[in-house]
């Protein structure tokens, strides 16, 4: 699965003045459906070999962006280059070098597992013999070799997802687009997929993925953008984002239902910032244990409490005032 590497390295020497080649370059990218603008002018740079994430809640515009990058959905405005090419005029050439795992499976239920790969591989002009070999390789790669002759209908959700990923690899893409690759999977299936994606990354495949799981973004992404309502609200590595937009630790306090709003004022001075959620209070501070001790000193006794590190979830809450996973 070593991809035929495109010339995507940073140029040196006499070409140093040239911008380094990018896998995806978007400027002021927009997508409108009728009057509704789903993507409202975003700038994105995806560098060769990195894993880049779009993190955002439902309706943020992640899939709309992914479909534009996949050269199937024409942008309504702005400039977009994928692998240095223009999706509007070089769609087939772009698509022959990318792999796409759409949010909703588009597997062919009438074909068996292996034929799904073979027929799809043929669309890329891969010779029959070779596509047959790749199909077997890929089925092993996603641990579906024993299901080769099974009907797609009979696969579990996680198996279908793995098959979709296998299918997206049949042309040995340089760029892999994964729209919510693990939504709806159980933890075990998710970890298997993550492992496979890590391996692809090690082989030099550039990954672009969307997710609304912060742990997935933290695990998989070198860099990510947080999207909300069609805009990018923050950008950086998971660590940078957490450092920039949140504190080191968070103390979570749970009191009786309906008490959180009133209690927030009583602890406001104990943390840099306090967030009130319907079911708990979040105290943002560099030292969570310390804050917790002070809370108890004041005679407040939460029914439950814990201290944890800040995550992207907190970043998102900070930036948008809303929780990510609803």
């Amino acid at each position, binding site marked *: 699965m070593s991809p035929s590497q495109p010339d995507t390295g940073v140029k040196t020497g006499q070409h140093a003045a040239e911008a380094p080649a990018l896998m995806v370059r978007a400027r002021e990218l927009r997508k409108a459906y009728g009057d509704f603008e789903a993507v409202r002018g975003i700038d994105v740079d995806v560098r060769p070999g990195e894993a880049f994430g779009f993190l955002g809640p439902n309706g943020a515009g992640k899939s709309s962006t992914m479909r534009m990058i996949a050269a*199937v959905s024409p942008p309504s405005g702005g400039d977009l280059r994928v692998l240095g090419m223009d999706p509007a005029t070089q769609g*087939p050439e772009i698509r022959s070098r990318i792999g796409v795992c759409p949010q909703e499976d588009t597997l062919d239920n009438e074909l068996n597992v292996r*034929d799904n790969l073979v027929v799809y591989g043929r669309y890329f002009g891969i010779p029959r013999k070779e596509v047959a070999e790749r199909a077997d390789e890929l089925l092993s790669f996603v641990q579906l070799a024993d299901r080769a002759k099974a009907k797609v209908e009979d696969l579990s959700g996680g198996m279908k997802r793995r098959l979709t990923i296998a299918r997206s690899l049949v042309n040995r893409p340089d760029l892999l687009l994964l729209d919510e690759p693990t939504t709806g999977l159980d933890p075990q299936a998710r970890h298997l997929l993550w492992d496979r994606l890590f391996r692809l990354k090690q082989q030099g495949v550039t990954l672009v993925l969307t997710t609304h799981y912060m742990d997935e973004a933290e695990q998989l992404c070198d860099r990510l953008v947080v999207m909300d309502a069609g805009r990018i609200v923050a950008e950086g590595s998971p660590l940078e984002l957490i450092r920039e937009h949140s504190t080191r630790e968070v103390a979570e306090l749970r009191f009786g239902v309906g008490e959180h709003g009133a209690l927030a004022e009583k602890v406001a001075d104990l943390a840099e910032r306090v967030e009130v959620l319907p079911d708990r209070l979040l105290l943002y501070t560099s030292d969570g244990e310390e804050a917790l001790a002070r809370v108890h000193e004041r005679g407040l006794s939460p029914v439950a409490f814990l201290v944890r590190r800040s995550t992207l979830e907190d970043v998102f809450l900070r930036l948008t005032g809303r929780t990510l996973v609803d």
Partner: protein
Amino acid sequence: MSDVATTPRRIGRLDLVGRQLDYWVTVYKRTWRGSAVSSFVMPLLYVTAMGVLLGGFIEQDPSTLEGATTYLAFVAPGLVAAHAMQTATGETMWPVMAMIKWSRTYYAMTATPLRPSDIVAAQLLFVTFRVATACGVFLLVLAAFGVFASPGGLLLAWLAQILIGLAFATVFFAFSAILKNESGFAIVYRLVVIPQFLFSGAFFPIGNLPPTLEWLARLTPLWHGVDLTRMLLLGTVDLPLALVHVAYLGALTVLGWWFAASRLTKRLAL
């Protein structure tokens, strides 16, 4: 940027269409049994019921049968042309909507180098193949009844079925690519397909219709197809009129094809 990235080799239309062969072969392997039986049994049923049994009741004055000497000879070409229409429309209504809405196969295809126009081209070739085989069998079964004038006419009539099939398939493909849900098919089937089947000269000379309806019948694609087929099979070719038929069906094919490709492109570009 490297040259590889900025000036990749353009992938040609023929190449992109050819890449879909394996898909359509697998579809055909799954469905050919059913269609083979019906394309053999249907003509027998029709010819027996309409040609032999119904024809037996019809007091024929050959001068009213557009050059046919028996009702069987008159109705046989009409049945073939109508069969071409039905095969073509059947393949481009529900199957197209299924690939848009239910199986979403088109979305899998457009994630690859294939464009909607390549998809339309390959599918229309498949429909052409279906019409060619179904009508080929139909014609051979009818030939056994000894109603056709010459082998040459038979061959040309077979080619005419492909043209009739394409004229209907392209237009119906375009229609299916626009339609939001399948209830539209029932309406079109009742208002477009069935009336043409009954009133476009397949079963009786359209001269029997009142003048306005006759004029209307002459505008339908199926009448052009039926008349062309009948001329070729009975050996009564009126060349200028035959060319009009071919031009009409050809124009419909070109327009419908263009329309189908542009509508599917629009439909799939979310």
